């Protein structure tokens, strides 16, 4: 019995009126964990009950602790009839099982009902006493840390990156059980919520076990998804990257990673590097030398085992002992390391990494995007043999649906296994031994399911992949660490790379910084390329070959050299499909897929060139299936990589025989395109240095324009169809207009509305070219559903509509967030779904972050209006006490009182003010200014109510003080401010602690849709409720922010005729404690004290 769970129910507030007669409620609480239930006393006749219960103690094994959620039900006592449930709270106690995460969960949780939404809050405290269990055969994996973030968490360093972990569990969906016909929607929803919570817990535990087996202690880039397969069941699956993480002991050390790093390697670096130039300085490597390498990448794998033996015999054993330490003797060790890399990765079934950004030196080369899709038919479960193979049978007995076939998970496993194998072979074909930025997704419509996987083929540095290797700290601010770089290049997998090592390690000692281009260099053999490509010498180091374009699914490496800024590029596509059933439907879909991918790819390429850029990062291609159409959406962040050659222009070619008018038309389009390209170059500040022809010239004649997107489709069968993505055109990039459709296509290229002045957007973690973020952020979720009303749908019309839909959504975002200018919408990823015939749903969760205008100033010259706002904004930042009544205020939180009142002591307020406000002097000034403020604020309020056109510019500070002054202390808020972001960081703030993963699943249903404001009103409330519940859980863990937040699922169904709607939302993220960057030297507790005291001293004398 390795754990004791303790729960205390303190109080409730804002409860709904349950007794119409008295307008009050007789509330009590049931606390349930596993099979044990406790009850509090009934607190009669109150909407704010004070139960103040004893500590309810559950004695449970840690397996249960991991799987089961704590279930708290608030009920209204009724003497004569059954007690009415008010609502429930599910608390995931997993964060308490890890010593480094939260120690206590304590706070106000919204009481949630799937029919009525949030109905008041309940104050709960939860603790866990864990007993050490040394049982080797244990089924639990307590203590393994989980992170949603796809980069190494900020206060940890990666000692080893072990690799891919995956798991899936399957169950029958309660919604589709026979009993669902007789039970209430509420019971059904709750059964579903509870089941998914349980399955998530189990999944996490199983993944944890795998991590422990691999010798790791954490999962980074953990992505859990569920597939609602309808009648055939419910699949919860997860993937992640197992790592061994070391906590960076103290914050001051973390600030100075260079000094902190205990690794001897850094000290050794000069020595290990010194001999290199001498040994290998044979001048610049010529392409000819590369010819000595002649076997194809795929062959190398088959040869590997035999060759390693010979290598081993040649290698001094001493080298082995030192493991990954940087080589003192280049030659032998390189061979050894190369072989180690291979073996390290070969050991793994799937050398995949869900990470999208890496410790410096981890990523050596990125080969290009690899993706695989497969269309499957979901089979109904015919097997009547109900076997409880999910280990934890008793939990299911309660739920009464212990019914799934034993082979079910295997089927799904096999499907994914197949796809992963495919990805792996694609990566091999690109000469890469690993796949990074890996992700998996599904799209289900009725009984058809498209499974998709994609990633970026890559060559990695083995040092991070083995035990006992060097410490590596992924501090982004470090511009370069010679050790890592040089070892990185030594780790070349093939002899081929020995060449590259020579030149690049030399460069490493020179002033240029090779990590800025190393990852662009091709990993495959130039003479045995997996596909024809146009190669040139790297424009950065001029030593290695690079492709002309690079598509990847990862984030732009921080060290990469980039010209200008990046921007969001989307390719959008709809294809009609005949309605069909079963096998025929699956065939139809898989026949369409290659064409969709091809077109999406062409669009991406065109749009990339139109922006004068040459690389895509964070590429996500989503293809969703509906009954009568397929919708494809590709999003990526385009950049101009300095290392890659400048993209050629786009040339339009008409049909061969043509009249003058037509020629005119063509040249008009051509002109428009050219204008757009040059305008975009201006906009994104793409002004690359001119490079002389002789350097660029490729030694190998390469006429064909190619891209590196390798993918295939397989239907239920294993057939793999490789598609030639060549555009088959000579010369730079020619678009042929041979029919009206093509004209449309080209014109549609130009319809992408330019970004409004002051806005940037990207779908990745960092925006190339913008660094000086302020701390003002606004995370948002937006959902739109469109109905296509035309009966005679055509592909053309459909495409245009879909394109407009996405453009309009973007326009709306720009308008809504206009007060944040200059700002960048980061992590702007759209998710498309086809919930019904003729309905298209687009959802996005992103964050708008403002940045310092200094950098943006040049661009904003043209437009005066935003400029004004910006200068005002800055004024306000510089003089936080200035009573300017015209600074944008929507998103700023002035230092405020009361927010910390109820927070646990370790909670640190991370305010979003850009400037650091010195709180003590703030208080003093407050007093002296208060009279003036009083006057000013009053005028502002009274005077501006109807007159000023831009009212949202009223000074936040003035009003902030006004509030301090006018609000009596009895009404201070007890709600902690919790920031949310889809990124792994919050600008201006430092993460000091990770409190655990947030993974929540909610269902909301209504039978009074009109009364709740229609579909929009219903969903608006629900999303706001989800945010509120996430914030409450984070606050209860002692945190003040959620990072890497994503909405993984938003399934919305409506039946307006019946006045009904249902929505399922699944979100996840990492709960963290933030402190503002300027405070990190101080002790957090002090900060806490002063923040809450200051406003009181400021407010007291006047109120």
């Amino acid at each position, binding site marked *: 019995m390795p754990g004791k769970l303790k729960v205390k129910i303190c109080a409730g507030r804002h409860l709904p009126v349950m007794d119409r007669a008295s307008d009050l409620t007789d509330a009590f609480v049931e606390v349930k964990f596993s099979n044990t239930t406790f009850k509090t006393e009934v607190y009669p006749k109150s909407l704010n009950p004070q139960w103040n219960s004893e500590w309810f103690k559950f004695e449970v094994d840690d397996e249960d602790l991991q799987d089961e959620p704590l279930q708290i039900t608030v009920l209204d006592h009724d003497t004569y009839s059954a007690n009415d449930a008010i609502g429930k709270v599910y608390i995931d106690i997993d964060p308490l099982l890890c010593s480094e995460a939260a120690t206590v969960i304590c706070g106000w949780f919204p009481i949630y009902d799937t029919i009525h939404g949030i109905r008041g809050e309940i104050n709960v405290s939860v603790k866990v006493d864990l007993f050490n269990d040394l049982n080797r055969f244990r089924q639990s994996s307590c203590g393994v840390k989980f992170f949603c973030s796809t980069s190494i968490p900020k206060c940890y360093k990666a000692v080893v990156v072990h690799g891919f972990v995956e798991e899936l569990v399957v169950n029958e969906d309660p919604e589709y059980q026979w009993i669902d016909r007789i039970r209430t929607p509420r019971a059904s929803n709750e059964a579903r919520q509870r089941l998914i919570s349980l399955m998530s817990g189990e999944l996490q535990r199983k993944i944890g076990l795998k991590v422990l087996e691999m010798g790791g202690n954490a999962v980074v880039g953990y992505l859990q998804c569920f597939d609602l397969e309808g009648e055939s069941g419910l699949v919860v699956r997860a993937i992640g990257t197992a790592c061994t993480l070391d906590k960076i002991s103290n914050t001051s050390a973390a600030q100075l990673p260079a000094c902190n790093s205990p690794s001897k390697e850094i000290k050794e670096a000069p020595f290990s590097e010194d001999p290199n130039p001498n040994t290998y300085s044979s001048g610049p490597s010529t392409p000819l030398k590369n010819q000595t390498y002649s076997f194809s990448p795929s062959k190398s794998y088959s040869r590997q085992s035999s060759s390693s033996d010979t290598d081993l015999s040649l290698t001094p054993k001493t080298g082995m002992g030192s493991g990954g330490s940087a080589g003192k003797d280049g030659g032998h060790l390189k061979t050894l390391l190369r072989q180690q890399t291979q073996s390290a990765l070969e050991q793994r079934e799937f050398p995949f990494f869900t990470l999208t950004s890496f410790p410096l030196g981890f990523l050596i080369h990125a080969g290009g995007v690899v993706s695989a899709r497969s269309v499957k038919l979901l089979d109904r479960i015919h097997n009547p043999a109900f076997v409880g193979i999910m280990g934890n049978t008793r939990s299911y007995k309660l739920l009464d649906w212990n019914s799934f076939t034993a082979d079910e998970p295997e089927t799904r496993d096999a499907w994914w296994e197949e796809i992963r194998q495919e990805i792996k072979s694609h990566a091999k074909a690109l000469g890469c031994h690993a796949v990074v930025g890996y992700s998996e997704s599904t799209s289900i419509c009725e009984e058809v399911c498209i499974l998709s996987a994609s990633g970026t083929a890559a060559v990695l540095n083995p040092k991070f992949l083995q035990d006992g290797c060097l410490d590596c700290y992924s501090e982004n601010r470090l511009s370069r660490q010679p050790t890592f770089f040089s070892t990185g290049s030594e780790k070349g997998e093939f002899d081929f790379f020995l060449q590259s090592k020579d030149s690049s390690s030399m460069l490493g000692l020179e002033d240029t910084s090779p990590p800025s281009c190393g990852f662009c260099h091709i990993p495959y053999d130039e003479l045995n390329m997996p596909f024809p490509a146009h190669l040139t010498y790297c424009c950065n180091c001029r030593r290695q070959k690079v492709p002309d374009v690079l598509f990847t699914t990862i984030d732009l490496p921080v060290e990469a050299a980039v010209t200008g800024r990046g921007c969001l590029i989307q390719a959008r596509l709809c294809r009609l499909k005949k309605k069909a059933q079963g096998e025929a439907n699956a065939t139809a879909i898989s026949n369409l897929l290659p064409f969709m991918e091809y077109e999406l790819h062409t669009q991406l390429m065109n749009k990339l060139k139109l922006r004068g850029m040459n690389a895509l990062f964070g590429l996500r291609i989503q293809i969703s299936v509906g009954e009568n159409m397929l919708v494809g959406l590709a999003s990526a962040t385009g950049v101009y990589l300095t290392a890659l050659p400048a993209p050629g222009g786009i040339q339009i070619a008409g049909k061969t025989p043509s009249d003058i008018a037509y020629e005119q038309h063509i040249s008009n389009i051509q002109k428009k395109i050219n204008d757009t390209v040059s305008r975009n170059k201006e906009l994104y500040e793409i002004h690359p240095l001119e490079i002389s022809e002789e350097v660029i010239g490729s030694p190998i004649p390469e006429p064909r324009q190619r891209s590196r997107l390798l993918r295939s489709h397989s239907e239920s069968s294993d057939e793999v169809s490789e598609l030639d993505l060549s555009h088959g055109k000579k010369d730079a990039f020619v678009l042929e207009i041979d029919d009206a459709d093509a004209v449309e296509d080209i014109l549609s290229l130009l319809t992408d509305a330019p970004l409004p002045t002051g806005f940037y957007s990207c779908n990745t973690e960092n925006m190339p070219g913008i660094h000086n973020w302020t701390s003002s952020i606004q995370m948002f979720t937006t959902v739109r559903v469109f109905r296509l009303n035309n009966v005679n749908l055509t592909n053309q019309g459909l495409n245009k509509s879909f394109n407009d839909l996405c453009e309009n959504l973007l326009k709306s975002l720009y308008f809504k967030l206009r007060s944040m200018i200059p700002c960048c919408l980061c992590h702007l990823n759209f998710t498309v779904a086809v919930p019904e015939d003729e309905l298209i749903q687009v959802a996005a969760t992103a964050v708008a972050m403002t940045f310092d205008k200094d950098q943006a100033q040049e661009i904003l010259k043209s437009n005066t209006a935003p400029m004004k706002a910006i200068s005002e904004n800055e004024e306000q930042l510089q003089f936080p006490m200035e009573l300017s009544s015209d600074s944008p205020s929507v998103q700023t939180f002035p230092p405020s009182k009361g927010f910390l009142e109820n927070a646990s002591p370790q909670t640190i307020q991370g305010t979003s003010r850009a400037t650091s406000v010195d709180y003590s002097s703030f208080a003093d000034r407050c007093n002296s200014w208060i009279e003036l403020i009083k006057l000013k604020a009053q005028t502002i309020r009274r005077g501006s109510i109807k007159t000023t056109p831009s*009212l949202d510019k009223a000074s936040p500070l003035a009003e902030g003080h006004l509030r301090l002054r006018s609000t009596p202390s009895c*009404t201070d*808020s007890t709600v902690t401010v919790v920031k949310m972001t889809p990124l792994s960081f919050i600008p201006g703030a430092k993460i000091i602690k990770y409190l655990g993963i947030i993974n929540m699943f909610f269902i909301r249903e209504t039978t009074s849709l009109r009364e709740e404001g229609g579909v929009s009103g219903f969903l608006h409330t629900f999303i706001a409720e989800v945010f509120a519940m996430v914030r409450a859980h984070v606050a209860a863990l002692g945190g003040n922010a959620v990072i890497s937040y994503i909405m993984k699922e938003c399934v919305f169904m409506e039946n307006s005729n019946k006045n009904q709607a249902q929505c399922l939302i699944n979100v996840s993220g990492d709960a963290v404690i933030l402190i503002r960057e300027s405070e990190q030297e101080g002790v957090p507790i002090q900060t806490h004290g002063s923040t809450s005291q200051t406003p009181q001293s400021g407010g007291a004398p006047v109120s």
Partner: protein
Amino acid sequence: MDSNEVKMSVELDVFVGNTTIMDEEVYQLWLDGYTVSDAVSIRMKSGILEQFGTTEDVLESDTMDHYRTFQMTERLLHHPSKLVNQVLFQIPPHRQAMLIERYYAFDEAFVREVLGKKLSKGTKKDLDDVSAKTGITLKSCRRQFDNFKRVFKVVEEMKGPLVENVQCNFLLSDKLARDYAAIVFFANSRFETGKKKLQYLTFEDFAFCACQLIQNWTVGAVDNMVEDMDVDLDKEFLQDLKDLKILITDKDMLDQHKSLVCTGLRGKIQVFNEMEGNFKNLSRGLINIAAKLTNTKDVRDFFIDLVEKVIEPCKADRWLISDVRAFLTQYTNSARALDGFKYVQSS
């Protein structure tokens, strides 16, 4: 091409920020009771489309989002302390203060129509007349009326200073809390303010009077230790006012009073002669008003009586405001100096 055009309708459109975005301009339009389409056209007239290079669709979607947010916030705004402690919307404190303050702000034209009326269902039914008369939308009228009524209900029976009660329960600014105190006070005593003769008075004028009355004539004003009630006029005090009648019924007293006032004011006011000639009438007017205040009906007519019996005669004689002030001060002080009144001071 036409057949290619796919008609699309937006079925659902939501935008939810972690920090709730609230545009003050749209908030005001919502408060003013405009429909979404009216609000959109008003916003368009402001040139917002050109300024941000956007389209009407976008503006409509934005307006709808805001309206939805405001509707969802409205029930919280009814109990501002709930807004502060609610979890659904993350709103920075200064924005909360703005929301509350604006929600409880009222139009001068509206308050003048309702001030002193019983805040009953009947009055609410007549709001469409008020709306027609003032040009304020019915929706806005209802909100303002409901605000008055809500504040009234909460503080009506509450002990302690009225202004502070309003402020503490509704988190309003000093100024607005004082205004509400006046509204509650007027509604409670049902002072008539709507008569034609009173039309020239602004709400501000009445609010000032209310403030004075609360400070000087209520139970709380006399004794702030027990039963501290600011809403009701002090019955005992009103009863005592009857004793003032002696100032007009007793001839000697009247003369004595008059001569004291005249002595004090000679050469100090412009309208001395008029005052001297009219003293008896003025004094009678004032004292009669005071003496009748024990009747609820007469309390209601307090302001109309003041205008008719005191202000209008003065106006007719072209008194200056300084003259009136000087007269009233002298009038009060002289009365205190009279023999029969000395005990009043000591008690």
